[in-house]
């Protein structure tokens, strides 16, 4: 059973070794830490990290992420070269460890093309059974929100991200299943498949959600939230 869920942003710049001498987006980092702290307060028996990856697959819970693939030099020594976890799962593990979590975890990557129905089914599987399960859902909205965004500006980005935020804020996580998969891909919204796993795990309305961060300082939509689930 799902006892708690959190949504966290998943950009490489969340990793402190990668952003150089300046403390970049401290508010985003603090929000992710807060979301994880609240997730862990629910006392889960297992935390499942869900995030985008090359294909849908479960990874070794002891797996490591190598931030050096995004930059060697200063990043050297912050992770073993050859670590293979996808970015989203690696960042999730980092957040859990920074939050002091030493308990059981599962790491599930969801492929970018995984259809909503399959995501929902995966979510439902995670929710089945008696094990007290917390979901740490990693992913981001559109990367096409401004002229200087990585994907430049697409006017469809703003309403897409607004719809995601509205569903999350309103505690209607199941509504995330309605996100258009093709549009999400065109808008470079990496979070779509992971959010739809969450939607399958918590399909009913009534979650009480705190949005801890929502902004796009670099033209990519970051959303951080924690959810108390309906009883």
């Amino acid at each position: 059973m799902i006892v708690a869920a959190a949504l966290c942003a998943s950009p490489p710049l969340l990793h402190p070794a990668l952003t150089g001498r300046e403390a970049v987006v401290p508010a985003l980092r603090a929000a992710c830490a807060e979301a994880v702290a609240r997730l862990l307060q629910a006392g889960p028996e297992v935390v499942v990290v869900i995030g985008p990856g090359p294909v849908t697959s479960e990874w070794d819970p002891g797996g490591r992420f190598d931030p050096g693939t995004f930059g060697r030099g200063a990043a050297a020594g912050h992770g073993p070269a050859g670590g293979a976890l996808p970015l989203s799962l690696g960042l999730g593990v980092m957040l859990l460890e920074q939050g002091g979590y030493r308990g059981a975890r599962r790491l599930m990557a969801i492929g970018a093309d995984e259809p909503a129905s399959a995501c929902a089914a995966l979510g439902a599987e995670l929710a089945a059974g008696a094990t007290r399960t917390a979901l740490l859902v990693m992913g981001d909205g559109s990367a096409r929100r401004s002229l200087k965004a990585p994907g430049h500006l697409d006017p469809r980005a703003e309403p897409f991200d607004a719809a995601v935020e509205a569903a999350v804020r309103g505690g209607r996580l199941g509504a995330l299943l309605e996100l258009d998969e093709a549009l999400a891909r065109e808008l470079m919204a990496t979070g779509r498949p992971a959010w739809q796993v969450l939607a399958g795990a918590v399909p009913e309305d009534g979650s009480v959600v705190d949005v801890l961060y929502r902004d796009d300082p670099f033209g990519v939509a970051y959303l951080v939230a924690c959810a108390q689930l309906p009883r």
Partner: protein
Amino acid sequence: MSAAGPAEGGVLRLGRREFGPERRLVMAIVNRTPNSFYRPGLTWDPAVALERVHEVVAEGADILDIGGVPAKPPDDVDVREEIRRIVPFIAAVRVAYPDLIISADTWRHEVGREACAAGADMLNDTWGGWDPELAPVAAACGAALVCSHAGGVPPRTRPFRVAYDDVVRDVLATVLGLAARAVSAGVPPERIIIDPAHDFGKNTWHSLEITRRLGELTGTGWPVLVSLSNKDFIGETLDLPVDERVAGTLAATAVSAYLGARIFRAHEVRETRQVLDTVSAIQGSLAPARVVRGLA
């Protein structure tokens, strides 16, 4: 040496000129765009652009790189518009400077063909061989070709979370593959240049690393071109906006020259020429201009 290897003795032939491995060449940027990242619109007016050519030649430019499409979005510039922007200008420069080496900054074979017909000696493709027809055009026109690494991203896209197990290994595999493809297409090895293309499909860490390890590219024997000028990896290193990056650019230029790069694509031609001549003198490949102090 394999059939796809670099030219004997490291000779580089551009146009009718021939350069040994110790010659360092400045490639002056003249953008025929209204909106490039550095001093946008400076040379959009053709008369102003031609004045700029006179300036950079006087400052010591060996090559002129003429481009019509900015590296960043937006604004589609289609083939016809790109040709309109650069081909007549190339023709005008060729008339004014019959022996100057002219490079067309394009990834498109249709533009390359017209540029060569108008007098270009070299095709500078920064987007990693995106158009496979460009190398055959270079061969047919007798033009030199730059083989670059852009991380596989489509032209005019920004890097988004690009990662490499080993960026230099990835660069080498790409540019050496493109060089071999160019040789097979009929471009003679002495007209092939490789370029790691700083910041193209790479973040600041990647660009710093390819600079640090540039010796692995120059060690292949292929002439290496670097385009460092006022780029974002300099800006992020020093936390400086685009119009304050000259010192950082020149530092990266000196390091790249010391590690063996041979062509330097630059906005600040005079300063770049001075840096290259100083590095060459330090390395002993260029005599100082005039030595009398202590010898009188």
